[in-house]
């Protein structure tokens, strides 16, 4: 079976029921995507399938054969970080950092779809990603700043990130 991960083809020979998460981590060797709960509750394993954020711990590889899979390793260009990643550093968002690949991938999917998301839209898109260190305020601020920069606009209220 051939998977397309971050624009590269990978031939894998495992049980087609194997969750995508473990193939990404163990066969593709891309360990930025994390295991957190195994039941789609925490979002640590979030990747994109054709640009849509999904939980790879629940997705068997047989369901993704013809789709474009994007992981945290696949959103930067060869020479520079993606805007979201750069702003994550600028705002010093991560603490332990374990959930942040999933957070960034979810944020990336949101901003691809919604140019200048409202607080409610951010909550909705990001509430599937748990952060045990409580970096939520900085995540929200980071998304707003990234949205502004990507849209070349400055219309967002940066004050209340609760």
């Amino acid at each position, binding site marked *: 079976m051939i998977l397309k991960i971050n624009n590269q083809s990978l031939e894998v020979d495992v049980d087609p029921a194997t969750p995508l998460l473990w193939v990404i981590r163990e066969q593709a060797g891309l360990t930025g995507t994390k295991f957190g709960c195994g039941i789609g509750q925490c979002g640590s394993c979030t990747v994109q399938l054709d640009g849509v954020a999904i939980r790879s711990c629940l997705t068997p590889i047989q369901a993704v054969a013809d789709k474009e899979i994007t992981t945290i390793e696949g959103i930067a260009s060869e020479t520079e970080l993606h805007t979201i990643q750069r702003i994550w*550093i600028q705002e010093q968002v991560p603490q332990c950092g374990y959930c942040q690949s999933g957070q960034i991938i979810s944020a990336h999917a949101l901003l691809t779809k919604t140019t200048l998301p409202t607080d409610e839209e951010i909550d909705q898109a990001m509430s599937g990603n748990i952060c045990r260190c409580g970096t939520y305020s900085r995540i*929200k601020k980071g998304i707003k700043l990234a949205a502004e920069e990507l849209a070349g606009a400055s219309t967002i209220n940066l004050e209340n990130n609760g």
Partner: protein
Amino acid sequence: MGKWTRRAFITTGILTGGALVVGIAIRPGNRAGKVKDLIAGEGDTVLNIWLKVNADNTITVIVPHAEMGQGVHTTLPMMLADEMDADWETITMLEAPGNAEYANYAMAKGFIMGPKDIPSMLIGTVDGFFLTATKQISLQMTGGSASVRFTGMLAMRVAGAAARAVLLEAASEKWEVALEELVVKNSTISHPPSNRTEPFASFVAKAASLSQPAKPRLKTTEEFTIMGTSPPRFDIPSKVDGTANFGIDVTLPNMKYAAIKASPVFGARAKPLDAGAIKDMPGVHKIVNLEGAVAVIADGYWLAKKAINELPIEFDKSDHDTVGMNDIYDQYLRDMDVAVADGKEEKDVKKGNINKIFKEATNIIEAEYRVPYLAHATMEPMNCTALVKEDGCEIWVGSQNPLGFANSVAEELDLDQEKVLVHNHYLGGGFGRRSVPDVAIQAALIAKEVDYPVKLIWSREDDIRQDHYREANISRFKASLTDEGQIIAWNNQFLFKHDPEEAPHIPYGVENQFIHYTNSETHIPWGYWRSVDSSMHAFFTESFMDELAFKANKDPYLFRREHLTNAPRYLKVLDLAAGKANWGEDLPAGWGRGISLHQSFGTIVAQVAEIEIIENDLKVHRVVCVADPGFAFHPDGFTAQMESGIVFGLTAALYGEITIENGAVKQSNFHDYQMLRINENPKIETYIVTSDNWPGGAGEPSTPGIAPAVANAIFNASGIRIRELPFKNHELKANTGLLG
């Protein structure tokens, strides 16, 4: 484990009869030679165990603590670099290896001696004593909010200043000029009169041969150039592009994966499984029978997990198979009653005479509070990779105590501690959980059965059900108020006492106090959980203070104020919190405000929560947090820790509840052990108060105060007094008029 706290040091005999025993301690002097092979490359000069100056004039700071998001890999180098007058841009860090030479003497010294001024001639002896002691108990702990306030203050700053002193001495000798004429800045030494400037690297060879002062002059706050600023953390870039290497990310040649099934009832034995049980499972290689668990090794984790789920694993009966929460609470209450009846309370604080007051008092208020067991639920489930060979063992793990892990694994495998090499990684959350070596021991025992490396990963279910828990507890209060509304007697009984020592103590001026506790052993494993005893005592004492304020017919903030006349440091923090939170200003219907004040790990924190009750739902809108840590060495990091601790404490207050049924933990994953999510995140405002006090911690002190602030706000909004956590178990309704 659990040997690293002040109380534990006392019980392990480091302190005897209140006196420090130092007579036979070694004077270690400069141990640079002992660690050279561990940390230095070619051309690097190890000036002392905490730093090396590299050939290119960059400086590497050795940090004996694990990075779990608290920023210690950045803040400790800042402390050393500032005292050394090093160029921050050229600083790199290296986490200290899990080696006995990096046993944490400074942490033990800080816990035991605090900010005592020790004469120069005794410092070597005292440090030598603590080094010997911490080596003996294999202590290299990250915890107790201790890294900055003890390792930073007692090791890093001293090491930086001492290195600066010998570099200056070397420059003075080389140039044959007076020390006083030299200027140090950005890793260079200048002699303005002769217009000479050279980098540290020019003097380092000579400096390394000089004896470093045990008590070098440290900078005053006004002289800081790096401390007190917020440079970007070193660990963050790798945490945004997927390259950060957590324990679970280790990949080794020929590595295989293990999953495990452990006895749901703690302490019960697993029935050994026949090796042939996996014969029809392709890719599954081996069954390993452990005492309380069975593990399988397979080509991939998912295969291993699938196999362990399918195998018929059974456990022996144990004495605890029927234990439930009611049994535990009944036992607690019985033991508390018996202790009081027999006069066998463990005394914590005894002041004045409460019995005399209660005998004569008319205004007596009593209340009983409860909190449940809590799991840590670090985002990265427990895991460890091990490779065991005939003559030694290597483990790859994220640990809060690498040296302790090495020691535990060595004991289990019957090896010398030096034969266990621990590769420590970033921790995907610690919160106290990663100070327990259980998973490392399991991984080593599994890997011992094969000749390739094995990565053991616990499922989230294993993680929730095989934790070492913050205990369930009961706290009983009895207090008396004068006619003027002053607290005149305070009686508080609870269960167990760990750390911090002052967790159940109150800052308020109450003349007659009896604070005491009772032990009541259960089969549930206990562990350090972010802020430890303070995680519940702030809820107990600060909720009860609110009850007393209500009985005294006083505003809860002003009532606290009146009891803080002799505690100006607390008063300042409380006043600022009330001011920033617009205390006293009107709120919409259904909203409420609550206040709390608690000191833990050397930092005083006041919080004001603003909440709304909508139908039966609780929404925490805003939290004002004022903290006095003495000094915040990395203010942005300190602020991040305040936010983090509040979310952690609020999660527990809203949802956190581990229940025991039939001897085992009922909850299993995030659907029934719920976490606060971004849509529930309050707006948190942090204000830092600087004072002249010895620095306090950052990782834990904001966790305790959020539960009582919210509980008091609920009372303010609804008249409902919550005496048992979590909030989710309570019916809430705004403005019921049921005040009291």
